């Protein structure tokens, strides 16, 4: 079971709490986690990754285990602690005022 922490705006959009849990089949990568997230919550398509390019939106970042994974390959395996559910995968809106 993978734990994913959503930013506030996406929680209200998906009508869910701070943290969601997902089943991910096969290798646990950023791509497979985000694919599972979008399959479970279709309204989040286009909010984290661009619809067409599937790339991270510019003002979104990905953290886990106190590391910034935003610029890692989407197909690189996530840390074991994320894959086992011990630590969450965090989707974070970049800090900005307003």
């Amino acid at each position, binding site marked *: 079971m993978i734990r994913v922490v959503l930013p506030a*705006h996406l929680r209200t*959009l998906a009508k869910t709490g701070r943290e969601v849990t997902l089943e991910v089949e096969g290798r646990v990568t950023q791509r497979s986690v985000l694919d599972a997230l979008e399959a479970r919550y279709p309204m989040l398509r*286009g*909010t984290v990754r661009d619809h067409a390019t599937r790339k991270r939106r510019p*003002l979104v970042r990905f953290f886990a285990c106190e590391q910034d994974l935003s610029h890692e390959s989407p197909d690189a395996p996530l840390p074991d602690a994320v894959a086992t559910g011990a630590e969450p995968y965090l989707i974070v*809106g970049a800090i900005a005022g307003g």
Partner: protein
Amino acid sequence: MSKVRVLAGTRKGAFVLASDGKRDRWDVSGPHFAGWEIYHVKGSPAEPNRLYASQSSSWFGQQIQRSDDGGKTWEPVGNQFTYAGATGTHQWYDGTQHPWEFKRVWHLEPSLTDPETVYAGVEDAALFRSADGGKTWEELPGLRGHGSGPDWMPGAGGMCLHTILLDPSDAKRMYIAISAAGVFRSDDGAKTWRPANRGLRSEQMPNPTGEVGHCVHRIAMHPSKPRTLFMQKHWDVMRSDDGADSWHEVSGNLPTDFGFVVDVHAHEPQTIYVIPIKSDSEHYPPDGKLRVYRSRTGGNEWEALTKGLPQRDCYVNVLRDAMAVDSLDACGLYFGTTGGQVYASADAGDTWAPIVRDLPAVLSVEVQTLG
């Protein structure tokens, strides 16, 4: 008894303001989509409880929300806006070419007859349509296919298609306006378009009378006189009596002819309203006085409407989609400010009172006359 429902989009959510026909007591619901920018909310003329809302965020992109119960509950529908074919380039602020990039939906215009059909004006400027209640969207490529795109440029707010007018007398005729490209008209159901800017003069352009490139802020029509159009341009209030084939200036005695909104009285096609703003470098009313100006002659002769509006120390702006009229008798007017007030007049502008004073900055105001 008739009711009115005012739909306000703000920087931090949407609000629904409801009243009976007296329009003196209001119920306020919201914020809906708290924290998100709501550029526009508009109801279907064919099914008034069907509302569409444009919800966006620089972080998380575009959403379209739909309500089928007059704004009590909402569901997200389709949010994929993909330009048709090659995206091409437009002018950037410095005159260089810049690729077209989707940023947000500025304006939603539901069909006059079919609640499932709705048009979307987007930034970077293009026209989209959904025929399934907002689930899927397709670009109507004839507009950008006109070929003048490399001469379109963004205004300060971005290169937005912000106005969509559907001619109630001819289902195939539409007008749209883009900042800063100008007005375009289609006579064949949005398949092909031609610029409709003859008579406009804009000093921000190398050729001030060019075919495209004008920063048109808003256009409006009365449904009984669809060939007569009114325009608030960046500078200049303009009028056309030939379906935008040509325009002439009707700024007359306005204190300044810069502004964003223009609208038409529901029952008097020659009675029009603007809210003068000091200048493009000072986006607030002249002299700190918030005044709506009314012309009962379709322009040129204007009177200031001030009763109930702040007449000192007022430095708000009124953005282009933030004025609307209801169709009650007497005609009601509504506008929202960047200071978070929504003002209403139940007597065609003679007197005003705020419905709410402290919303987030208001981006858009629409009104529905019900029952």
